[in-house]
Structures are given as C-alpha cells and as structure tokens.
C-alpha cells in the first residue's frame, strides 16, 4: 500500500550500561498511514520514548544501540540513510515535540529565532526577511502574537512555550509529527488547548502523528489507532474502536481498570499488581506473565506471537491463539 507513511518492522533497541544490557525495545512493529494518528500508550519505562527516538535515529550512542529492525519512512529505510540525509529529514519530514517545554527551548535565543532556525536549516536560500515572516506566521498560527517574536523563552508561560515548541515542530510542514507526551508537563486546561491546537494543525496539513502518552483519555480524543506497549513490546494494536471497545490483552484490561469511570460507582480503582519487570533481566516468556491473572505455565516459558484477529486487531497473548487462526 502506498499510503503507508511509516512502517516500523521488528525494531529492537538496547542500552548497554555498566549495570547490564537494558532491552528497551524488543521487536516493535507499527504502521502509520498519511494523516493518521497513532496513540502509543504505556507506563513509564515501557520504551515509548526510545521508540520515538529510534524513529528519529536520536538514540544516544553510547549507551544506546539499535540492534535490529527497519523503519521505512515513505518507502525508504531510515536505518540505511547517512547522517547527512537523516539531518535533512529531521525537522523537515519528521518533527518531534518534546515532553518538557521548559527545557526543550534554548534559553538564550529568542523564540522567534528558534522557529526561524528550523526554517533556514531546511530552506537555506530564503532571505532573512522571508524566513522571519514565515516564523512570525508560525507564531500567529499557534496563537501567539507576532510582536512577541523577540522575547526569550523565560518570558513565556509553560503552555505558551509548548506552543512555541509546536510551532518549531510544524514550521516546515512535516509529514510525520512525533509528540512525546506533549501535555504531561502542562496543567489540565492548558493540556486541552494544546491538544486541540495540535489536532487542528494536523488536520489542516494532513500530518500523520505518533502521539506518545500514558493518558488513555488523550488517546481516545486524538487518535485513529492505538498501540499498547509493555516492557518494550507492543502487546495490543488496533484501531481506536477495536482497542477501546474490545479489550483483549490482560495488560490493557488492567490499564482501563485503573481509569476512573463516570458510569460506575466504584470506591476503589483496580490497580495492576506488581511492577514492570527489570528491563536488564526480562523474563523469557510473556513479559506480563508475572502480573497476569490468566497466566499459565506456557506464558512463563514461551513468548507469545502477535496474533491477528479477523478484523485486523492484533494482540500478543496466547488466549487469542485459537481465535486468530
């Protein structure tokens, strides 16, 4: 299919430190069509950010290393590109919004200049006046008056800084936007504004988005497909409808159980027992077996495959082995 923008195949990333090898990402497979939004949900340390950095090829090396896998962007394998080709891609084709707007802006450069920076990096022939005009337009687009072009990041509030970060990310009309927990550092009202804005801009430019979050509500509002990641593995993957209406994986079940619901009057939320396994010593079988109430001996000994149900809903659990066939 030609409308597939991003095709991640079997991507594995490790961090080799003195304390041992951390298997941060184990054979992740994801696909993203043009203009589509994919929500990547998982808890802290599940490998969400590692996946995002892997796509940008920004894994700090050492200690990080991409062990295997391919990432096809628009038909080209990103892993095969030279560093120069990769630089041309970053910011122009694939942009990233970082989690913390407080630290992701350069404190000694005006916000306008930082937006202009990405524009001139990818359009070196633009005159100063033209690039400045474009940068001002970007500022206006994210709802900041252009007269604040010459202000420094510390003169902005957190929400406004995140808008600037978004303006930088979208300044060159990228095809793919990777938003790594874009609203985690913001309070709830600002979260809503920022998400709405990202969504609006995304629709306008037909940008595909990989939204990384641990907030299921945010995913429900913004995404078309959802992938649940646990201990470096995608455990459930399907459209928003499939995953939210027909929860398959026990981990996903646990995740949804820990979200308060309006319609039921439960006093306590169901938490998932136990902790995520130590990524330097992952269990041999299913990574979730330790905490799973359905776990069998087979789960502990053998790693389940990604089983695809008839409607395309995928899950990594032996309970659906028969159903999938």
């Amino acid at each position, binding site marked *: 299919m030609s409308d597939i923008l991003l095709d991640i195949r079997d991507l594995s990333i490790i961090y080799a430190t003195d304390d041992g090898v951390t298997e941060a990402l184990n054979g992740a497979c994801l696909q993203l069509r043009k203009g589509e939004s994919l929500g990547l949900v998982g808890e802290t340390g599940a490998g969400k950010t590692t996946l995002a950095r892997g796509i940008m090829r920004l894994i700090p090396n050492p200690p990080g290393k991409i062990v295997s896998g391919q990432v096809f962007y628009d038909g080209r394998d990103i892993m095969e590109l030279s560093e120069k080709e990769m630089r041309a891609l*970053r*910011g122009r084709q694939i*942009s990233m919004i970082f989690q913390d707007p407080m630290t*992701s802006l350069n404190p000694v450069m005006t916000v306008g200049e930082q937006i202009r920076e990405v524009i001139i990096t990818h359009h070196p022939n633009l005159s100063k006046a033209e690039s400045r005009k474009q940068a001002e337009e970007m500022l206006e687009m994210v709802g900041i008056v252009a007269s604040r072009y010459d202000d420094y990041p510390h003169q902005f509030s957190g929400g406004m800084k995140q808008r600037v970060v978004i303006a*930088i990310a979208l300044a060159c009309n990228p095809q793919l936007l990777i938003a790594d927990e874009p609203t985690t550092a913001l309070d709830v009202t600002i979260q809503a504004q920022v998400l709405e804005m990202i969504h609006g801009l995304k629709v306008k430019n037909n940008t595909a988005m990989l939204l990384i979050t641990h907030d299921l509500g945010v995913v429900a509002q913004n995404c078309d497909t959802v992938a649940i990641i646990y201990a470096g593995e995608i455990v459930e993957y399907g459209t928003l409808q499939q995953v939210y209406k027909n929860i398959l994986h026990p981990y996903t079940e646990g995740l949804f159980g820990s979200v308060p619901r309006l319609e039921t009057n439960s006093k306590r939320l169901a938490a998932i027992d136990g902790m995520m396994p130590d990524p330097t010593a992952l269990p041999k079988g299913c990574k979730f077996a330790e905490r799973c109430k359905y776990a069998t001996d087979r789960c502990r000994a053998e790693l389940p495959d990604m089983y695809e149900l008839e409607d395309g809903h995928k899950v990594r659990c032996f309970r659906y082995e028969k159903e999938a066939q």
Partner: protein
Amino acid sequence: MEKTKTNTQRSLWQDAWRRFRKNRTAMAGLIFLCLLVLIAVATVVIDVVTQKEFYNTYVTSQNLVERLKGPSLEHPFGQDEYGRDILMRMLWGVRYSLFMGGIAIIFSLIVGGALGALAGYYGKVIDTVLMRFMDILLAIPSMLLATAIVAALGTSLVNVLIAIGIAYIPTFARTVRASVLTVKDQEFIEAARSIGCNDREIIFKYIVPNAMAPIIVQATLGLAGAILSIAGLSFLGLGIQPPTPEWGAMLSNARNYFRDAWHVTVIPGLGIMLTILSLNLMGDGLRDALDPRMKN
C-alpha cells in the same frame, strides 16, 4: 513593569547592557577601562602624528638634576630616578599592559576555547588526550611556565605574548569544557538535533551562547591575570626592557629608590592595581548582566 511588551526589538546584548548599567561598581570599572583604552589610543596617535618627537621630549628625556623629585604642579606624579615625568610614563605605559594583555588573552581564549569545546562536545578519546595535556600544562605554575618560555625564546614583546598566551590556555580550555558539558546534555540540544541541525550549528548557536557567561567572566579575570603576568615578567627583567615605560618595568626599577621616594613605586603599583580591580569589577558585573535567567 511599567513598560510592557511595546519594546519588541530588544536583543540579548541590549538587555544585558540595560542590566549592566544598573550595577554601579561594574560601571565604574568599565569607565576606568574605557579611560585607559582612550589613553592608550591617544598616546599611539600622538606617537604617530609627531613621529615620536613628543615621546622623546617628554617621556624618555632625562633630567638628572630633578631625579626622584616628589609630586609638584609641573609633574603631578613626580619624577623618577632619571628625572623623567612619571605621569607621562604612566600614560605611555598603558598600551603595553592593556593591549598586550588583551592580545594574549584573545589568543588563549581562541585556542583554549576551541580545545575545550572539542573535548567537551566530542568526549571520549579526544577529551582524554586534550585534557590530560592541559593538566600537564596546568601542573606548572603559569608564571613559571611563562618565565620558562620567555627564557627559552629570548626576551621580546612577541615572545612575552606567546608565553602568557600559552600559560592561559589550560584555564580557558577547562572553563569552556565544563560549560559545554553542562549545556550539551540539556533537552534543547536534543531538540536542536531533532530539527536537523548539524554539529557546527549546535556548537555555535546552542552550546557556545549558553556557555558564554562563565567564559566572559574567565576572560575578564584572565585579562587581569595576564596584565599582572606581563608586569611581573617585566619586573623580573624578562619582559619589556627599559627604557620602555612599562608599568612592571617601572616598578622594578623604582624598587631601589623605595626608601627615598615613595611615589616612584606607589604610582605604577596603583596603576596596576586599579586596572586589575576595575577588570574584576567589570567581570562580576558582566556575569550578572549576561545571565538571561537573572533578568529584571
């Protein structure tokens, strides 16, 4: 803040200047230094225009009858052991301290800064090799190192510059490396990489400006040190040779007459001290002014 966001065109430097102006002691230092620069330039101009005639008549001409005479109306700072006017000699000496110190510091800032940035940014082997070499240089006291270099190369103006320049390289390399290290792991550097910046852009647009404040402070303090070193080398007889009116050399010559005439030592000493003091005050003020996190 009574003036709100109407002032749109306000650069980092204008902002820093605004804050610097509020700092009175730093301003005093700056004014004194500007005065010194003016004097240095003016004396050079006078030399060129009068083809050293003024210099020969008033600065080096001896008057042995009036040797070691105290301050008077005609000679406000008194006269030295050869009856030369100390005020004139002080004025003509400014250029050596200021310009030579400046050149030496710029030299070591460029070399040391580049080495430090390389070591800090690329790390690993480059870092280890460069920094261990700097450690070796640093292990030798800078004055001793400069003395040794001058002794090896011979006493001349250029050799003094080279000696002091080399002696200050390790301090700059260390300062720059340290600031680069603190800046390079911050998220905005990764953000810069994620918009497609290359190493050069990241170093010069993101890391260096953020690491600037300690470097500028180090440079002003280093300039003070370099001026002292030049004076020190001249005092030891290894720097600028008499009859050139260099402050350190003047001080050295005056040593012998210290008991008979206080002014011959105090005046050059005060000159050196005030210059160093104003540089230090200015360095302090600059550090405060250049830190954008300390705005308003």
